């Protein structure tokens, strides 16, 4: 009887591992093919599938440059937008969250409930009104229109609030007040260092979101010198590149590899961040 139970468990375990491996293959193979094909020439790609990298990386880069697609500049633009977005999001979200957590002002409850509602409201659907308004202000084709709205990043404030509630130490703040520190000084010098792990999580999400953002950039940015990577990716589908498979894969790989590297370094922050956003206490 007991042996039978054990046997069934083992059989089940084998079955589970087989399913997991199949799903893993489905998950990873497209990404691996993308990275490998970026290093293969178009001829090699047409000859057949291979999971081994080849030696045509720079050749492919040359083809892209030759067709007027400046991958390096796109990378720089994306990096600038993503880093600026990250800094703005983290600083202002922590500032707002700190205000909610530490002070008991009138309307505080209402304000924090309002933020939860804002998280649920799809802002992307107000993009047309946003575009017209930005063009009146002369901010279209300007990164400011992508970055400044992040001062009011509701999702990030919500996360920040959850996080600060678990790390804020009121005694420490009071002690600093006795020592004559200003309120904003306390936030900068005492709160920020304490909040580093939470800020990391927040920052990684802000970076990835900005790096991957296609729709807003596609609508707001128009001059080619300012194109970010997702916009360049979109042009890769054009006829000019129809037969240059290696170059296309390289263009795609450049957008994906930095994110994979960030993930490899910081995956625990990301996993804990997602779990924390959904499970309260």
């Amino acid at each position, binding site marked *: 009887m007991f042996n039978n139970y054990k046997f069934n468990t083992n059989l089940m375990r084998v079955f589970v591992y087989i399913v997991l491996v199949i799903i893993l293959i489905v998950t990873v193979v497209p990404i691996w093919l993308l990275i490998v094909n970026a290093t293969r020439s178009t001829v090699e790609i047409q000859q057949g599938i291979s999971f081994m990298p080849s030696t045509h990386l720079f050749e492919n880069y040359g083809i892209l440059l030759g067709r007027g697609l400046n991958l390096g500049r796109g990378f720089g633009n994306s990096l600038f937008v993503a880093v600026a977005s990250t800094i703005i999001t983290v600083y202002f979200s922590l500032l707002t969250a700190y*205000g909610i957590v530490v002070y008991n002002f009138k309307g505080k409850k209402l304000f924090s409930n309002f933020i939860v509602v804002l998280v649920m409201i799809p802002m992307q659907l107000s993009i047309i009104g946003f575009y017209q308004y930005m063009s009146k202000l002369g901010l279209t084709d300007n990164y400011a229109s992508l970055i400044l709205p992040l001062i009011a990043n509701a999702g990030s404030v919500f996360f920040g609030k959850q996080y600060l509630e678990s790390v804020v130490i009121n005694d420490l703040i009071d002690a600093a007040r006795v020592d004559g520190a200003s309120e904003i000084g306390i936030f900068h010098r005492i709160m920020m260092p304490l909040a580093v792990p939470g800020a990391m999580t927040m920052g990684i999400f802000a970076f990835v979101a900005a790096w991957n953002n296609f729709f807003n950039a596609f609508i707001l940015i128009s001059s080619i010198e300012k194109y970010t990577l997702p916009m360049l990716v979109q042009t890769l589908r054009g006829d000019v590149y129809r037969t240059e498979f290696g170059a296309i894969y390289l263009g795609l790989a450049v957008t994906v590899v930095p994110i994979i590297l960030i993930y490899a370094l910081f995956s625990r922050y990301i*996993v804990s961040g997602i779990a924390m956003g959904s499970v309260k206490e």
Partner: protein
Amino acid sequence: MNQASLKRNYYGYLFIAPFVIAFLIFGLYPIYNTIALSFTDATLMSKTGNFIGLMNFERLFADDIFMNAVKNTWLLWILNFIPQVGIAMLLSVWFTNARLNIKAVGVWRALFFLPNLLMPAAVAALFFSLFSFYGPVNQFLVRSGFLPEAMQFLQDVTVTRSLVIFIQWWMWFGQTIIILIAGMTSIPLPLYEAAMVDGATSTQMFNRITLPLLKPILIYVFVTSLVGGMQMFDIPFLLTDGRGSPSGSIMTNNILMYLKFSSSKGHIGAASSVGVLVFFMTSICALAIFYFLREKDSATSKSAKR
């Protein structure tokens, strides 16, 4: 002291001021502006449009393309959401099962989540290349004898739709696993131990303990996925020609809005009305789900306390 702390609490307003100001400028006003534009015939060429009442909305409801886009968006979302939660639930149960004792759960979970972080625009372009006429999928299928000759996958309605659904599933099931595991591990173990003593089967335990206690988290997954799904753009836009081809089968709400916006005259009035309608459709559905299921949930937890 009390006086001082009361005064100090005004600093709260200073701390939230940047958020409030930025929200008014970049959040609230654009929403108002979009709604206002949706009642006009404004174009990108004209500085201000004429007020035309509900005409944009009447046109949309009479427009097969719009109705088709709404239908497609729901179809693509629902058909990705069901297997997404189903498979994520199955894997999460396996990962948290003490008897199975799966090794390196963290590693599996981290790998399954990876596609979620990749740029959707690049993912769409990748699958476009993989499934193109001369792409690796055709190569593989022809050489191994599954297909007599290469196929134009992306000109077939069913294949293209399935591909969009697959990509959405591929990008999101890992995130759902992380959320569900977090929810399942927060359920107190003694509940299961007591059930085991009473001789409950694992199916019974799942139905009577795991599922009810997971409900708030499932609502969260449901609502966030719905809000995201109704805005689906990058994947269907970049997988084919950006007009929902073949034959409008993957035309979504946001693609239609973009097409109206980018048409030669730039009908931002009409584009806004698409945005506004989808905005209300999504918000109403999300709030309804939230409200409806929340109420029931607090009622059951009250009766459980008694």
